């Protein structure tokens, strides 16, 4: 078994709005092993992006870690130390964002932006950095690289820009790559190319991946293991095949049933009543209790623990004890 690369232990993150604290991430615990590809799935507002920002040390001003810790490659990252984060980002962990158009600097040639990453974090000369950038651009499947090096972002297509972002993220050979909805803004045929590239990069460079998406289909393409989040909690965590074939948490099951497909033609789609509770309306009990078709008495008062079954399939639901369905 590979070593643990990223370990998040009982992490709580809260927003402070008007002097009041609103917890946005609750009791978050999970690990990513070296070279592993882990997905985080959930609807908007469930805390998946906040999780990645916490790991990057990029939490917005109004949010703060209130409990728990994050350790990367055996080193505990403390929230206060800016220098520590700065050396970690880029070298140890890098991130690609949803919209490459807003993530790239529009006033600087793209090649230079990639080289800048190496210049900042590695002890290299300008010439070496440029050479590294060109090599990286070739690796992510771009052609005419000499010419592309000097192009500005607006001259590139969405797919090319996302390839540039991947090149920039991987140039310092980080141990962990966080991809936050990297293909959501792209067309399906381009999405397929980028997903294939990410899988290939994981295989050839051994970079572990934390892949965030709202689309279970995309997660299945890329990841080995998937974490399902709901209203700031991890509700289920299991190998991808396992979760798709045998979802345990009622929320995961409902998400899968609600997906439209050609096979479901002519039938009404399964719907989850209501919506994800907004930050200000989250109370005690199971976060999903209000919308859950199988909720019973204690679901509304006691928050269930994240229960580990025998097969590494974790689920946060009162219906399960030690991974087995009760009652």
């Amino acid at each position, binding site marked *: 078994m590979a070593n643990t690369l990223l370990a998040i232990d009982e992490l709580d993150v809260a927003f402070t709005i008007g002097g009041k604290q609103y917890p946005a991430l609750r009791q978050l615990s999970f690990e990513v092993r070296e070279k592993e590809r882990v997905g985080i799935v959930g*609807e*908007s507002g469930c805390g998946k992006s906040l999780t990645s920002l916490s790991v990057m040390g990029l939490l917005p001003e109004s949010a703060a870690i209130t409990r728990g810790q994050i350790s990367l490659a055996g080193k505990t990252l403390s929230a206060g130390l800016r220098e520590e984060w700065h050396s970690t980002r880029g070298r140890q962990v890098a991130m690609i964002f949803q919209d490459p158009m807003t993530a790239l600097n529009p006033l600087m040639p793209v090649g230079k932006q990639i080289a800048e990453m190496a210049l900042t974090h590695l002890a290299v000369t300008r010439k070496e950095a440029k050479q590294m950038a060109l090599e990286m651009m070739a690796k992510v499947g771009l052609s005419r690289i000499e010419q592309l090096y000097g192009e500005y972002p607006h001259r590139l*297509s969405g*797919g*090319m820009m996302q390839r540039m972002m991947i090149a920039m993220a991987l140039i310092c050979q980080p141990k962990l790559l966080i991809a936050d909805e990297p293909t959501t803004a792209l*067309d*399906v*045929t*381009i*999405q*397929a*190319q980028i*997903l*294939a590239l990410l899988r290939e990069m994981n295989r050839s460079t051994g970079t572990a991946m934390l892949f965030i998406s*709202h*689309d*279970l*289909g*995309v997660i*299945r*393409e890329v990841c080995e293991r998937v974490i399902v989040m709901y209203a700031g909690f991890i509700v289920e965590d299991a190998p991808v095949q396992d979760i*798709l074939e045998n979802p345990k948490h009622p929320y995961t099951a*409902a*998400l*899968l049933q*609600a*997906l*439209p*497909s*050609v096979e*479901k*033609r002519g039938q*009404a*789609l*399964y*719907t*989850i009543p209501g*919506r*994800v509770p907004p930050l200000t309306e989250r109370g005690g009990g199971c976060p999903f209790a209000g919308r859950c078709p199988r909720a019973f008495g204690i679901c509304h008062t006691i928050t269930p623990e994240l229960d580990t079954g025998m097969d590494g399939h974790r689920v946060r639901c009162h219906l399960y004890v030690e991974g087995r369905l009760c009652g």
Partner: protein
Amino acid sequence: MSEPLIRVEELTKHYYLPKTKLLEKRNAVRAVDGISFDIAEGEIFGLVGESGCGKSTTGQMIVQLVKETHGGIYYRDRQINALPANEMKALRRELQIVFQDPSSSLNPKKTIGWLLEEPLVIHGVADRAKRREIVLKTLEQVGLGADYLKRYPHELSGGQKQRVGIAAALVLKPKFIVIDEAVSALDVSVQSQILNLLKELRDKLRLTYLFISHDLNVVQYLSDRVGVMYLGKLVEIFDVSTSAVGPLHPYTKALFSAIPDVKGTRERVLLKGDVPNPIHPPDGCAFHPRCPLAVDRCSQERPGLQKVAPRHEVSCHLFEEGDFPS
């Protein structure tokens, strides 16, 4: 099958670019380049394609929000794109559109009640009590109640806003609605609620939809027939429920194989490169530079839509009438 409700003939939209040199021939973006299809009464016609292929422009031309460069649009066999303004206004009651992003298509300064009443005022429903009655009934149809009348758009969630967007299209009791990416911005659990609503409304009010989306899972779930666009042209039209062979055009095949699905049973056809520049589309078949099956003829001669089976048309040299190479 009933008579077509909407028929489109050789519909074209060119956006001209400014000249950069005095004697230069003006360049044009061929957003939609001569497409023809029809939609039967009660049918849901899906229009799919990647960004920039012209699917939204097509929808906007049909409801005359965008003026076509040339071509004909027929509603119940009456040409509507040459009508005088007052007749077109009367017809707008029957042709409506629902937009992608309800947050930007609803006026943030007006209450939901006002937003839904405005179309009735414009179209001359004079009696105030009558208007109120219609608005309330429409709100109920989309699953919202009277307590929404006094609310503002920012007080609603994304799903509720989209219900209001649908209600705004429904108040005038249209026959035909263009639904342009109406569920793309929504989460899965809300998306399924809206899809069910659209289906229910179609059955109850006998509506006809042009359903535009880039999400192929959604389109295949909802539509009766699907038209696939590439660089401003229709490359294939097929019936989702009866087509035994499924999509045939190499582009459609690649597009459909690229859908990430949760079962993972599809065979991948990975396309190389990006969609070419629509100012200078490739000669011959527009798809030939990316097509894995292209032959010499594809780069010289432009294929047209050909009927290869009942309710199935393909625009590709590999398919002659009734012929299915594998």
